[in-house]
């Protein structure tokens, strides 16, 4: 057994230990996945099934939640519905069975698109700025570097929402309220400190000999950074990007406060889906399920880098 594979422990754990560890992991995974499974199931229930008690584990799945999520509907008389032609789609059929007709698309897609633009935009900016700043702090003698780094970290020392009121007032004055740009700037500001600190750790791990070698090999510092340092830092950049994206994607408080219309993101929108006679839980669940997809895809795509990022230093060298 080589040193590289046994960096953590000298003694290989016994079969029993491994089995117990395995059971604990599986049980923990099941427990944490119950709410997700619940949401997923609810999204396929009919509204009456979704609020029945005790909760139904066996039910007839329906797409009603998804139909309601993407459409707005109006109640019509049975005669009017009779008078219409044959249903255009599954959703049409489901809606008519509830004595309603589709009036038009809901706001879910525009809100979802806002979320995509704002979360990915701010993640890109935070990681871009963070990478450059981290490289600078890692490689150059920056005057007052420690103080600057502490200042950057200190922006995370209180919950961002504590400054909600001043930001709200400033955004109103600046015309940034309810704009995608405003939200991108805000999330970037919150994430950039995390990005700088995480990435500085990764940059410090990359031996400076690599870029020195590249500079001697005839490249400028910027070229050396691009061709040698960046490929080495992909792990750290991927891990940082995921953390930033998760924050920006899930952020709720600022989104509620600062967006209401054209720039509203999905999180504040989903709870406002109200059906006849209260919350339309299957539609809310459907909205949440779809909302989970991008972050899931992104994480799966970068899974390898993320894992290597978490164990960084342990497996390197």
């Amino acid at each position, binding site marked *: 057994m080589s040193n590289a594979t046994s960096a953590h422990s000298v003694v290989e754990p016994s079969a029993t230990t491994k089995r117990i560890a395995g059971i604990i992991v599986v049980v923990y995974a099941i427990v944490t996945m119950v709410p997700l499974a619940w949401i997923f199931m609810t999204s396929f229930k009919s509204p009456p099934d979704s609020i029945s008690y005790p909760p139904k584990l066996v039910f007839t799945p329906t797409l009603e939640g998804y139909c309601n999520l993407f459409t707005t509907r109006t109640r019509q008389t049975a005669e009017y519905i009779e008078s219409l032609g044959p249903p255009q789609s599954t959703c049409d059929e489901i809606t008519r069975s509830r004595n309603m007709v589709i009036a038009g698309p809901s706001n879910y897609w525009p809100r979802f698109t806002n979320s995509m633009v704002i979360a990915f935009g701010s993640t890109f900016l935070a990681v871009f700025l963070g990478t450059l700043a981290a490289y600078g702090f890692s490689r150059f003698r920056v005057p007052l570097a420690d103080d600057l780094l502490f200042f950057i970290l200190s922006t995370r020392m209180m919950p961002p929402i504590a400054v909600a009121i001043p930001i709200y007032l400033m955004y109103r004055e600046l015309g940034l309220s309810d704009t995608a740009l405003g939200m991108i700037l805000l999330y970037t500001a919150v994430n950039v400190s995390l990005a700088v600190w995480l990435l500085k750790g990764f940059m410090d791990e990359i*031996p400076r*000999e*690599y870029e*020195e*070698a*590249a*500079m*001697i*090999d*005839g*490249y*400028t510092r910027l*070229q050396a950074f691009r061709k*040698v340092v960046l*490929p*080495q830092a992909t792990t750290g950049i991927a891990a940082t990007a995921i953390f930033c994206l998760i924050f920006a994607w899930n952020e709720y408080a600022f989104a509620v406060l600062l967006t209401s219309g054209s720039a509203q993101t999905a999180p504040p929108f989903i709870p406002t889906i109200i059906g006849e006679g209260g919350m339309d839980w299957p539609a809310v669940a459907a909205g949440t399920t779809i909302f989970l997809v991008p972050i899931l895809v992104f994480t799966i795509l970068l899974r390898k880098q993320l894992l290597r990022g978490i164990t960084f230093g342990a497996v390197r060298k």
Partner: protein
Amino acid sequence: MAEIRVENLRKQFGDFAAVEDSTFTVQDGEFLALLGPSGCGKTTTLRMIAGLELPTSGKILLDGEDVTFNRASARDIAFVFQLFALYPHMNVRKNIGFPLLSQGVPKAEIKKRVEETARLLQIGHILDRSVSGLAGGDRQRVALGRAIVRRPKCFLMDEPLGTLDAEFREVMVHELRELHNRIHATTVYVTHDQHEAMAMADKIAVMNHGIIEQYGTPQEIYARPASMYVADFIGSPPMNFLRFHSGLENGSTSVTVGEVPVRVPQVHVVREPGELALGVRPEHVRFSEAAPLRGAIYGSEYLGTNQIVSVETAQGVLKARVPADRDFAIGENVGLELDSEKLSLFDCASGKAVPSSLYAEARHG
């Protein structure tokens, strides 16, 4: 290929002077070893020549052209790092070709030159392997390949054999010197290992505390050390020092060590009485019953063809390299005969060698 000239080079890190007023010239095609203990400024000197550090003052000239403040990338110098710094995300071929890529050499030409270089270093069979799986010696060869592929003006090497195991280091010392003989590239080689420096270099600069203590051929440095530091650093075991109190007269050929007169190469200066040290290489000591300089056997180390015998004298312990055919009893009283033409004298206060006919030879060739 080129001549490197370093003039009054100085590097200050805060209050600490890493390199102080270094001046030396590496002739075209010459192999210079910068030798010294860690922290003596040898790597800093090398990095300044490479352009990885800017000097606090002084000049660096490549073929007469002042490059002191030129970018590393504009100096046309190759550098082999201690830990090789092979780019981990590229395979061997790309690593070696990387310097050519920056110069805009066409793809076909890069391929040709990388393969030529690989043939020279006998690493043709690993060209398409990833660098992370390579053994130490192969990593070393790839690093060399990346350095020579572009035919730079000179090579700078920072303890490139430091991480190899002892047995393999011997092989690489030989290979490096062979390579140098074949391509005659001006080379500056940093090492703390005197054997490497002695075996490979045409010239050696011995550094200590940022100062070049002596610059010369390996023979000069060994036979005529300019200071007690150099005498002590080079040779294993190092030069013996027999300390005594005396003055010196110009032209005298004898000194009195303790109460015993010892013949030395003719002294060329006058010295007021003070602490002096007689420098004796272990191989310049013979045991002789009649000799007036006496000592008691203190211990011996058997080395096969010869042995190192420690003798306690009134002026301190002296180590002698003598044939292994004789056994000595601890405490035995022996007479020591010194090879008088090969002795050095040092001024203990300054640590510098006292000028004598032995040292004059150096100046006259």
